């Protein structure tokens, strides 16, 4: 299927989990497809990066569920900041480990999982629905009861997949992409290249087959689909373009210029515009 087909499966108000971590291996082609769709009012669950920032900037997000939103090499995500400071988005702010536990609970069809993280902090203050649970054993320890974070849809980007949706990561970290898919009603996987199943094991060990086709409802071939986030070993983060993205948060006019330059067409047009950006930088002054 195409990235636009994936966006077409979404409905306004859905809870969408997005894989990757910070500005690393984010399913950006799928995010860009959402920007071309009429979908809005999303609850986005993410180890947040520019996926969150772009969706917030485009006004598609009602609530963000996260422990952070960052661009890694640039610590603060400018569009997420603007949304928070303008009060245009709601936030469920969780410890990183709590987010992990919420996804694990959902994947295991449990109502909650106990965790120590969050005790004594202001996370319970800003999440008044959060409860604690007492161990029924002799220790009687009181812990946070992290509720399951059930997702309507998960979106992830991997290096390779076969046509049935067996997904392979070739970089150093799987992040939590498998868990996002396990926690979701339906999952969509984009990848740099769709290859025959036999080629997957030629590219990496069997442990690199992170996601089973049993979890996947659609596969999209999207070369450069994580751009401008990293997708090693296929490519690293495009730091120059990330800086261009950050500059787009300087003013409404700057954001409009960025939209016009990069987000007004389809994915092919985006990649072509990125190519022109690179060529302009490489050209002698």
């Amino acid at each position: 299927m195409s990235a636009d087909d994936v966006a077409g499966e979404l409905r306004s108000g859905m809870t969408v989990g997005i894989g990757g971590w910070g500005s690393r291996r984010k399913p950006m082609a799928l995010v860009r497809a959402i920007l071309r769709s009429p979908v809005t009012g999303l609850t986005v669950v993410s180890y947040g990066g520019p996926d969150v920032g772009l969706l917030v900037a485009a006004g598609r997000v009602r609530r963000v569920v996260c422990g952070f939103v960052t661009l890694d090499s640039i610590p603060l995500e400018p569009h997420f900041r603007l949304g928070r400071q303008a009060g245009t988005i709601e936030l469920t702010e969780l410890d990183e480990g709590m987010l992990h536990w919420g996804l694990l609970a959902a994947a295991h069809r449990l109502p909650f999982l106990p965790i120590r993280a969050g005790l004594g902090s202001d996370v319970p203050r800003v999440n008044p629905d959060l409860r604690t649970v007492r161990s029924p054993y002799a220790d009687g320890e009181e812990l946070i009861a992290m509720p399951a974070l059930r997702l309507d849809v998960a979106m992830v980007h991997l290096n390779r997949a076969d046509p049935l949706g067996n997904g392979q990561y070739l970089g150093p970290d799987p992040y939590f992409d498998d868990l996002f898919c396990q926690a979701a009603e339906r999952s969509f996987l984009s990848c740099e290249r769709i290859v025959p199943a036999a080629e997957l094991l030629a590219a990496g060990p069997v442990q690199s087959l992170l996601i089973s086709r049993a979890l996947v409802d659609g596969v999209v071939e999207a070369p450069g689909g994580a751009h401008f986030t990293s997708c090693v070993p296929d490519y690293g983060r495009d730091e120059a373009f990330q800086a261009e993205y950050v500059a787009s948060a300087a003013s409404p006019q700057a954001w409009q210029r960025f939209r016009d330059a990069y987000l007004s067409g389809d994915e092919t047009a985006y990649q072509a515009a990125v190519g022109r950006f690179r060529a302009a930088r490489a050209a002698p002054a």
Partner: protein
Amino acid sequence: MTAGEATRAEVCVVACAEAWRGDGAILASPMGLIPGLGARLARLTFAPDLLLADGEAYLEDAGGLIEGWLPYRSVFTLVAAGRRHVMMGAAQLDRYGNQNISCIGDWARPKAQLLGVRGAPGNTVNHPVSYWVPRHSRRVFVEAVDMVCGIGYDRAAGLPPGAARFHELRLVVTNLAVLDFRGPGHAMRLRSVHPGVTAAEVVAATGFPLAVPDRVPVTRSPTPRELALIRGRLDPEGRREQELA
């Protein structure tokens, strides 16, 4: 400069290194350049068993060779197991060590959105935590933080019995001094001032009453071997000086 004449940044590197003294084979997670140099210096000298990650998903040994795999999912397990000592930054820090990296102002509509709580709540209830503050000021050292991310000793004391048994705030290293939480009721205490800094300067740059002992030691200077390692091996380009600029 001649050996023996350490810069302030070099004193800070060694002060950060001291945070990990005696920690054994646990993951050292330094946030920031100078804490990173400190952790690597500690491993090259008095804490050889420390584990250090490369910033992605590998554990690297002192020679820069990969010695293990540490994806984020494994980091979370190390955190919960307590086999880690992190040195985090702080946008705000109060006298009992409550730390804020989330946002400034009212959480519901912040004046400045920062990183978010990240792993600070879990870190502070699970394993030792230290802090690095490159600019010691009343903006950072405040009477009350706007959002408690890492929990301090007063919050830990208010938890149900046993819940805070793994809570330990080790050191706060700044550009001016080293502090700990051995004041009355685990309040922040001035532990040492860096060479050339007075206790009065540190007190003036701190927005709450600081516990100051009668005699304040001077932070130790790097040994000649430590200086050689910092300058020759760990940071030959001198990036450490920019973090304090």
